[in-house]
């Protein structure tokens, strides 16, 4: 068998293999941070209650399957593999649906990649949920598997599919019409009637828009944000099915140059998808989030050395990484500093912005603040899901506070998950056991360095809060670094100069850290020291008129 005949014979299989490898590499090498983001915004539980809670709304089965898959994103290679297989399923199903009435031409084979390419593009919007792709696969499978069922079967199939996969069922209806070339338009009206009945009698908590367009395809309720991109893929599938119906074009579609054009279309679509729907800065921040979560501090710094997004979030993440690796005093102003919020961001009501600040609070020993930020982050997940990451941290905070009864509530939920179970079971062993908790290196340390007295939190007085943390325990080296860093960010030169000697002594520095040297040089030269990175920061602050009056 020649290579050409081998390729011709196994073209379809080779294509599937290529899709599998490409998608795996795309997610595992290219965008593992996207997997982390999805995983940290849900918590799949192995319980019947959880299953029925998902199943209680239209599209619930797709949602449940989606969350089942997303839990494996905890291990990026496994998540990428799962996504790759799902992508292959979509491609194979598309090809089967499209070429049902036609011979499998090269052009159709290549064009069957288009939905999966666009789908991958659409998922560049991190709020598009995997249930969207699962629903698409379910509907394509239903179209293929139920094609011999008579039209009257749709009286049952349409509502059933609507409940299992959601409004993506419209694709089933359209593909049936296109596929059989029959004018059974009543099925569209039937689907609409089903949706309206569900709205009137079952889904009384959901707005009509969500009942018609999807409750669980998008993290943000559709009444707040309706991305039009969600409908690109179904439209393309229908167009491909229409193309597949054109028997008179089959000869034409078999030509090499047409296949080459199809290749070009797919390639251009792929480039456009990545360029337009995977914004560099956004994905850099998601990467920082992942690295911070995993505690890969040096990787955060290494990436920031090459490229740093100029946002408060990025400053928070990089400064935390610098502190955790003992470099904050030396290198803080080598990196972008977004003003006085560069260490800790004020409370923001979304599920992402405060994550590095919450981590910083935790490592500083500001346990209540860490708990508060994590709590609000979790409650800001707009589809009401819980976060395994947040729940774990909240449980830790309750343990550190000695609130074991509440901690157990959280641990018992985490014990129903796959990837947090073993941690939760270990943590449970520590409940009510002060010796065990204090012997835990992290928990024991945090209990020692946390506030000993009760103060009222005031974000505007962050330097004082950090100062009190130091006063409460001189061993809290990170708090010392943060305190001095906050003084510098506030351009509070008086207090910085007052305390720098004491901090030198407490921290055991043999010589003044490079960052402090630079700051002192800047201060002594009244901001004119050549090459001073701190002088650059002060200049920016003066220009933005944000310097406080303590300088």
């Amino acid at each position: 068998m020649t290579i050409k005949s081998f390729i011709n014979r196994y073209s379809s299989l080779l294509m599937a293999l290529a899709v599998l490898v490409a998608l795996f590499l795309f997610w595992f090498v290219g965008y593992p941070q996207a997997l982390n983001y999805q995983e940290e915004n849900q918590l799949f539980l192995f319980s019947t209650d959880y299953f029925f809670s998902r199943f209680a709304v239209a599209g619930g089965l797709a949602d449940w399957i989606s969350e089942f898959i997303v839990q494996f994103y905890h291990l990026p290679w496994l998540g990428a593999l799962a996504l790759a297989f799902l992508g292959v399923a979509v491609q194979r199903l598309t090809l089967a649906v499209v070429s049902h009435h036609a011979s499998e031409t090269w052009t159709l084979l290549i064009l069957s990649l288009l939905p999966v390419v666009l789908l991958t593009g659409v998922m560049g919007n991190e709020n598009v949920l995997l249930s969207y792709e699962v629903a698409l696969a379910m509907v394509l499978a239903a179209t293929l598997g139920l094609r011999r069922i008579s039209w009257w079967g749709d009286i049952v199939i349409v509502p059933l599919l609507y409940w299992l996969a959601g409004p993506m069922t419209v694709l089933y209806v359209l593909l049936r019409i296109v596929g059989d070339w029959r004018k059974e338009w009543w099925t569209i009206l039937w689907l609409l009637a089903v949706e309206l009945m569900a709205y009137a009698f079952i889904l009384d908590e959901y707005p009509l828009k969500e009942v018609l367009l999807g409750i669980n395809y998008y993290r943000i309720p559709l009444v707040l944000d309706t991305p039009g991109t969600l409908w690109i893929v179904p439209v393309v599938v229908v167009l491909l099915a229409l193309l597949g119906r054109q028997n008179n074009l089959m000869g034409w579609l078999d030509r090499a140059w047409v296949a080459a054009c199809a290749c070009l279309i797919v390639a251009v679509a792929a480039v456009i998808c990545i360029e337009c729907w995977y914004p560099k800065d956004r994905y850099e921040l998601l990467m920082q989030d992942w690295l911070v979560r995993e505690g890969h501090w040096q990787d955060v710094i290494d990436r920031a050395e090459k490229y740093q997004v100029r946002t408060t979030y990025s400053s928070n993440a990089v400064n935390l990484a610098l502190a955790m690796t003992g470099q904050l005093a030396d290198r803080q102003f080598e990196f972008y500093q977004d003003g006085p919020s560069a260490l800790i961001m004020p409370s923001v009501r979304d599920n992402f912005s405060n994550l590095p600040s919450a981590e910083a609070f935790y490592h500083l020993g500001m346990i209540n603040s860490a708990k508060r930020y994590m709590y609000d982050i979790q409650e800001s997940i707009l589809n009401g899901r819980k976060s395994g990451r947040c729940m774990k941290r909240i449980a830790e905070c309750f343990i550190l506070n000695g609130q074991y009864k509440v901690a157990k509530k959280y641990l018992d939920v985490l014990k129903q998950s796959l990837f947090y179970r073993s941690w939760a079971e270990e943590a449970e062993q520590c409940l009510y056991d002060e010796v065990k908790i204090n012997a835990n290196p992290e928990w024991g340390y945090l209990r020692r360095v946390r506030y000993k007295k009760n103060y009222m939190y005031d974000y505007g007085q962050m330097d004082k809060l950090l100062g009190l943390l130091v006063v409460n325990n001189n061993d809290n080296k990170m708090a010392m670094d943060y305190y001095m860093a906050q003084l510098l960010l506030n351009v509070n030169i008086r207090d910085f100069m007052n305390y720098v000697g004491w901090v030198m002594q407490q921290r055991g520095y043999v010589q003044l850290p490079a960052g402090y040297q630079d700051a002192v040089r800047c201060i002594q030269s009244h901001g004119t020291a050549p090459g001073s990175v701190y002088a650059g920061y002060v200049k920016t602050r003066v220009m933005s008129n944000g310097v406080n009056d303590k300088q």
Partner: protein
Amino acid sequence: MRKLYIIFFLTMLLVSCSDSPNGAVVSTELPAIYPDYKDVTIPSGIAPLNFNAVGNDVDEVYAKVKGSKGGEITAAGDYADFDVDEWHALTERNKGGRLTVTVSVKRGDGWTQYRPFNIFVSPYRLDAWGLTYRLIDPGYEVGGDIGIYQRSLADFNEYPILTEKAVPGRCMNCHTPNRTDPKEFTSQIRGENGGTLVYKNGKAVWLNTKTGPVKSAGSYASWHPSGRYVAYASNAVWQNFFTGKNENLEVYHTFSNIFVLDTETNQVILAPQLNDSNQEIFPAFSADGKSLFYSSSPKLNLPGEYEKVKCSICSIPFDAATGTFGTKVDTLLNGRRDNRSYILVRPSYDGRWLMYTVASRSNFPIAQRDADLWMMDLRTHRAWPLTECNSQQTESYHNWSADSHWFVFSSKREDGVHTRLYLSSVDDKGRATKPFLLPQQNPWKYYHAQFKAYNVPDFALTKVNLNMHQVARDILEGKRTQVTVRK
């Protein structure tokens, strides 16, 4: 012979399936059960007081309930799950009597039968279909998946009234009926397209109550018994957080005043005594509607002086015929003098009692760990703590049933974080009975997995019939009737 085998087989099967506690070891100890229903007093017709035996080693529970006036029911299984109809019949039959509960617990191969305990069936019927409440994740600045719900008291069914899913991104305040009758109620939506809903006689009116001296939408509402007026507090609520491990947050208001809305004219009625620099909050009309109770604290520099917030309970005359306030303000309890804060006054609908919360500080009791329920006899002005109902944790958000013999309140006694609902009854002498936790089908499973807190409960005489889709459309549409200030 074949028949005998079958009978023998079926008998064995029956015996193995219904493992009865015959031959149980008798213990003199009371059983450890969740919730603690020992010696509580319940109304007849309440949902069954199902319970779980405490402990990881429990294999099976067997409970026998015997009425002092006759009747007996049993439950067996993973937890004591009584039949609803049987329970209702038993409680009806034993109204004014007691139920004796004998609990046996199987651990491993052996049963232990514990000392029986009593559940008292009150002679006072609870005249309510159910409860309304808000479920909200307890804590900080993000409300999360918030919702107002109603729950049947005769069984375990819960129904949403209005949830955040229907109006994403909006926060909703609680549903306040007129003397528990949901034919008249008010509620408030905050956030974009916020407004005050006044529902009367099947008609919903959306109002914008911000006008002139009324600087914010109305909250903490109370209906005048006539159904014509509603008193609201108008305030700005803030939170500050603590760094230590024992306290979570401090809630305070930067301003708080009280106004009364005339629902017939959509006019706001103001009184200078209720709109001064002091903070007036939690208004409540008296049973006869002739006065308005409220809490008041002097102007302070907040949040800095949060520890100095000490509320007094005051009352001011109100004339419903003219819709005017009197001039003389009575101080029933002086917070500054007593170094306490008297908050959230709730007069009983029969005019006999005044229930309120006492805490060491603050005008937002749910955030105060030492908040306790107190009662005052309005005939003698004698006051006492409801020790039967109080715990080391927060007790607050109490409301009376229509006949004023029952009250519901929220308590954080379980874990210090999540508020749960308790019901208790009051006799003619003002004595409260040991409260019972709102029953659930499987209480431990339900409450342990429930991460939301119960907020602002009230009784509902009948089921609330509100078209959530219509309400959501009204909210999103944003059409509001502007109220005016009565000159």
